[in-house]
């Protein structure tokens, strides 16, 4: 017992001798460290907070700035194209704006062209038409050193460097085949109505229509079938006139048997009108582009078929064309995006896609 105590005492002494003095320097440093770490941690968190605000203002910068000009910026079709072009642009150091998004007012394409030229952008992607005004604007931009790519609608007279469009003639042929198929199912003569944009100087519509007509003429093997074509001018000047125009169509005595839509919005409107006027089955609809509503229409059998456009490809083509033109001074005059037909047979596939998205 006594010995044990002695041992522990000596141990204690040894311990003390091993660490003589206050041995507080370590404690001091530890405390100082703790204080500093705490403060620095707080400051760091706070700094990050601030950085986040400041980061919104600064951030990454890009070498070039392209703008995309379209009248119909809100449609899925254009949004899809823009999205694709935007992403493609980012990968190539280009920032692409849908210019009309920046402005609270709705400007016409020509006005937007003006703005883009004054703003000295590095490239313009524009949904053009064949109007003289457009030609002037495009030429003005080109002479200001801004290359212009026309998208979806072309202006062949202008000095645009490239045109990114669809194979409109192919679209026409697809429509023609569908009309023939529908006519084959229904028999008798078919009244085909084609919705065209009123006052539009887009040549694409004409190509589509001629494509339809030529295909029917060439491929119609049934002599009993006859087709009457009618062009229904849809007033696309404002949001509501399209719908009104289409309703007017259904108020007439003779309702067309087949309606060919050359726009996504037209398709949606016709689809709704057919449902509303209880003409399902009586009126066949050939749609254009895809939206949830259109796909649903196909699934329900209200819409016979629609043309699917590879919008991603279009967006990419625009950026590629501008980039190529800027680096080489030259680029392909014409890029055609792929199209495909969606009907009852393959709708599942697209429904699944859109559900995934």
């Amino acid at each position, binding site marked *: 017992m006594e010995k044990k105590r002695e041992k522990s005492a000596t141990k204690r002494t040894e311990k003390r001798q091993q660490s003589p003095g206050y041995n*507080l320097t370590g404690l001091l440093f530890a405390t*100082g460290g703790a*204080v500093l770490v705490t403060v620095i941690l*707080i400051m760091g968190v706070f700094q990050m907070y601030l950085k986040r605000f400041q980061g919104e203002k600064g951030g990454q910068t890009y070498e070039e700035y392209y703008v995309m000009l379209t009248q119909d910026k809100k449609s899925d079709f254009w949004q899809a194209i823009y999205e694709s072009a935007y992403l493609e642009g980012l990968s190539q150091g280009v920032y692409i704006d849908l210019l009309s998004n920046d402005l609270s007012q709705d*400007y016409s394409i020509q006005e937007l062209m003006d703005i883009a030229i004054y703003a000295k952008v590095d490239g313009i992607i524009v949904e053009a038409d064949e109007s003289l005004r457009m030609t002037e604007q495009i030429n003005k931009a080109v002479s200001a050193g801004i290359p212009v790519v026309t998208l979806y609608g072309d202006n062949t007279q202008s000095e645009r460097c490239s045109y990114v469009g669809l194979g409109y003639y192919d679209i026409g042929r697809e429509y023609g085949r569908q009309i023939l198929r529908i006519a084959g199912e229904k028999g008798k003569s078919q009244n085909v109505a084609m919705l065209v944009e009123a006052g539009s100087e887009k040549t694409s519509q004409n190509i589509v229509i001629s494509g339809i007509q030529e295909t029917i003429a060439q491929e119609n093997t049934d002599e009993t079938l006859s087709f009457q074509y009618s062009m229904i001018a849809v007033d696309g000047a404002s949001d509501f006139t399209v719908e009104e125009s289409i309703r007017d169509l259904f108020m007439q005595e003779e309702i067309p048997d087949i309606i060919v839509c050359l726009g996504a919005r037209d398709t949606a409107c016709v689809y709704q009108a057919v449902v509303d006027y209880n003409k399902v089955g009586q009126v066949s609809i050939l749609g254009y582009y895809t939206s949830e509503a259109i796909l649903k229409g196909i699934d329900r059998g209200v819409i016979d078929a629609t043309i699917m456009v590879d919008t991603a490809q279009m967006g990419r083509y625009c950026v590629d064309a501008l980039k190529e033109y800027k680096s080489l001074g030259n680029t392909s005059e014409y890029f055609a995006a792929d199209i495909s037909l969606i009907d009852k047979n393959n709708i599942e596939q697209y429904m699944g896609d859109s559900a995934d998205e």
Partner: protein
Amino acid sequence: MNKKKFSSLSLQAKISSIYILANLFILLANMMLLIGINRMSNEMEKVYQENLNLNALSECLGGVQDSMVEYLGSKTTESLENYYRMEQEYSEKIRDLSDEIGNVSSTRMERNIRHMSEAYLELTSQTIEAKRGRNVEKYRLRYESATKLYHYIDAYIYRLNMEQFVSNSENYNSLSAAFRVFAYTSMMVMIVVILINVLLIIKFTGSMMEPLKTLSQRANEVAKGNLDVEMVAFQSEDEIGVLTRAFNQMVISLKVYIERIKDSMEATRRLKEKELLMEAHLTDAQLKYLQAQINPHFLFNTLNAGAQLAMMEGADRTYAYIQKVATFFRYNVRKENDQVSLREEINLVDDYIYILNVRFSGDIHYRKEIEESCLDRQIPSMILQPIVENCVNHGIREMAGEGEIRLSVRETKEGVCISISDNGVGMSQETIDGILQGTYDGTRKSSDSNGVAMDNVLARLRLFTGNDKVMDIYSEGIGKGTEFIIYLPVTPDADVE
């Protein structure tokens, strides 16, 4: 190294540095937090600054347009100056706009506004130029373009303003939320820092006081007399360290001194023992020596033969004389009895006086006053006779007239007091002191002595009684006689035996 530095500081410096450090920590934390709060409030102030800037820009743009229109309408110098001023102001303002293509829409809008504004300013100056040149067609056209562009820019600025207002409002909300969080966190941080500081101080003072506590405990133990305490193990350069080392040293020194004192006491004791032993031996030797000096068996036997011869010749007085002389010498020879009774000593004195009177034909008057009860007292042999001899040789013989020797023995409270006095020449005080201190040498001059000197008598008396005060010598001066007084204590050691 730092540790050493710190531990070498004085206590005051240590405590001060700890407090200063603690305060510094708090100050540091406070400052950092203050900086943070300051920056945050700056940021909050800045939030709507952009909107204000844009408003100013818009106003300035309007100013340019208005002044241009005014000039075109009135062509006054004032309006032209106004235009130039506004143009200058506006071109300065647009220089602040970003020229980068960022991923934030506001930066791109700024960039667009900047470029459009540059184009606009060029157009307006061209318009003004055309107006000055009175080129009506041209300035009308340019005016129209400029106005169109003015509306675009205005719309753009408006849009940007709106956008920034929205994002700033969001920023403001999140900033103020962050501000609240930050304020709360700051408080927590301060509390934590203060807690850490308090902990530090408690810990520090605690560990500073610990050695003091230990030290006081040890000191208490030492105060109670326990010198075998454990050493306080503590190394520090400050006052506590000094105190601790001093304490340790003190305990060690105390032990050493106590040990030393013990040793020296032991040595003294041994030395004394040895000294005593040596003294005993010396005394023994002295006695033996003295007795060896007076051992004349031959003389005694010869005297005996002379006594018998005188008796045979019928010379009675001669016989008695020789007999007494023989007895006197026999007494001297009795070595084995170192102590004798007072009676025997007095008898010896009687004999001696008789012999002297015979020799000097009755010159000495001898008187005795003896208390009978004292006669059996023990006394070293050969004490009284040498004193009497001294009286005779130095007192009486050197004077004229009749000498007288008085011997008195009486009992006092302290013991037996033996007085031997003469009426001789007396003694000077110096001689008395010399005799008593044993430095006086005069007694040995005379050859007419039995050989026992006063210093021997004194030494033996002192040894016998174990007392220094064994004899007094009184003399009232030259010619007034001398008195020797011997004090025998009541119960001397020898008497007990």
